[in-house]
């Protein structure tokens, strides 16, 4: 599996990561090697096999729609890197 520079930057953007210029080649090499290694799964015939999407044995776990176990407002804000009296603060994103 070849990963070019464009793909690498596209992936980093999708993952909201910012790769340093000097880390680019190393990351590209690691991704290529690992993806080439996982491609060995193509040796297995999976025709007609249903992909598994859930490992739990429970089905339809229902509970009544009651409000419980809430996090109080100040607890929810406690760990915020930036906040005011009632809200999380983030940089301006609308002009």
């Amino acid at each position: 599996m070849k990963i070019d520079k464009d793909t690498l930057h596209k992936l980093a953007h999708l993952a909201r990561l910012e790769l340093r210029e000097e880390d680019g080649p190393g990351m590209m090499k690691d991704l290529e090697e690992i993806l080439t290694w996982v491609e060995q799964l193509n040796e297995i015939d999976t025709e007609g096999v249903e992909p598994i999407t859930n490992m739990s044995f429970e089905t339809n776990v229902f509970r009544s729609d009651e409000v419980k176990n809430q996090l109080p407002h100040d607890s929810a804000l406690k760990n915020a890197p930036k906040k005011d009296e009632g809200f999380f603060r983030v940089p301006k994103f609308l002009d």
Partner: protein
Amino acid sequence: MKRFRSFAQIQKSLNEKNASCLDVVNYYLAQINQRKHLNAFLEVFDQEAKDRAVQIDQKIQAGKAGRLAGMVVGLKDVFCYQGHKLQAASKILEDFESQFTATCVQRLLDEDAIIIGRLNCDEFAMGSSNENSAFGPVLNAENENRVPGGSSGGSAVAVQANLCTVALGSDTGGSIRQPAAFCGVIGIKPTYSRVSRYGLLAYASSFDTIGVFSNTIEDNALALEIMAGKDDFDSTVSSRPVPEYHKKLGFEGKAKIAYLKETLESEGLNDEVRQNFIDTIDRLKEEGHEVEAVDFPLLKYALPTYYILITAESSSNLSRYDGVRYGYRSPNTLNMESMYKKSRSEGFGEEVQRRIMLGTFVLSASYYDAFYTKAQKVRRLIKNKVQDLLETHGFLVMPTTPTTAFELGSHTQNPLEMYLADLFTVQASVAGVPSISIPNGKDSDGMPFGLQIMANFFEEEKLYAFSNTMLK
């Protein structure tokens, strides 16, 4: 001072009034202090543990103590414990304080266990040597130039070096069993969904399990039976009743045991580990068990299947660390996008970023089917085969790891090389079946071997009983 290696010893001392809970806590605090350089603990709740010990001593006097009174527990740094810091050994959760308590931790507290501190691990539980921690590696107490294994390296060493009675860990692909093997202690990964994941930092949700490190099977079984079972806060957790594991620790009769031919033929298998395993098979036969070599050609595909699925799930789970609601926010940001990107790039370590990138790749529109869906299909095949095998055979045994504990720094250059440390542990994780690692002798350098034993879904009881017999 009295030494304590198991909860049974502690209980005996408490019953005979030779020691109080406070003495027990003081013993462990002294041990922790003496072995600080192992770097197992990220934080010790010393005063709090002492205060709680005094309260529990009073409860004992009043005859109102819970089943774990006197048990001192260490928590891998991935469990929420209200009012306490939690960091997943990552810079991105700097100064984070849990606002609630994980179900498994709460259940131990409800039975009067004493939590003594937070244990070092690989960042976000991603690693096999505990060298990916933002707080530096943990040292193996058997030989301080060797790794303790990972990701729950701190938990393994804490039990190995007698820094607590039992330690909690999480196991996604081997993160309890592999370090347990490297450190010569017992570590169980229960059946997927046996223990509620509420309050466990999510890594790969369809693989994550919570388990126990201990020096004795009895302690392990008791802690697990208290933590396991139905919970309103995790809709995937099993509603099956939990047996009293610790009461049935004698295995009777002869077992039908399988081992995989492919294990012995594995390229990365160290010669001494191979010989140790062959000796174990001989011993099982001598003891009258029926041991059979079976083919499992899918074995070598378990690891790549695992890496596709866990990177996908972790890239999704770790998207929550965005610098908005908690954790680290980069000071160098001008707008939302650069805030996300800089906070995440400055906050996450290298291996975490590599896995997020891989996961993003396998989930991207053009590659989703070829990688992610393909791996989900192979996972079903592996799961079915493992289940079939464990229906005809009571147990599946193999070495826990292809080598014993390796030197610090020896596998940090090539990520693939490090991934191979999980070669034998991922199979149970991919299938979801319970699996335990027990100490099984030492190599010529004095490093412990681990024997891994698997049983079918929800057969922890049998697994404990058989392991206990093996250790006698």
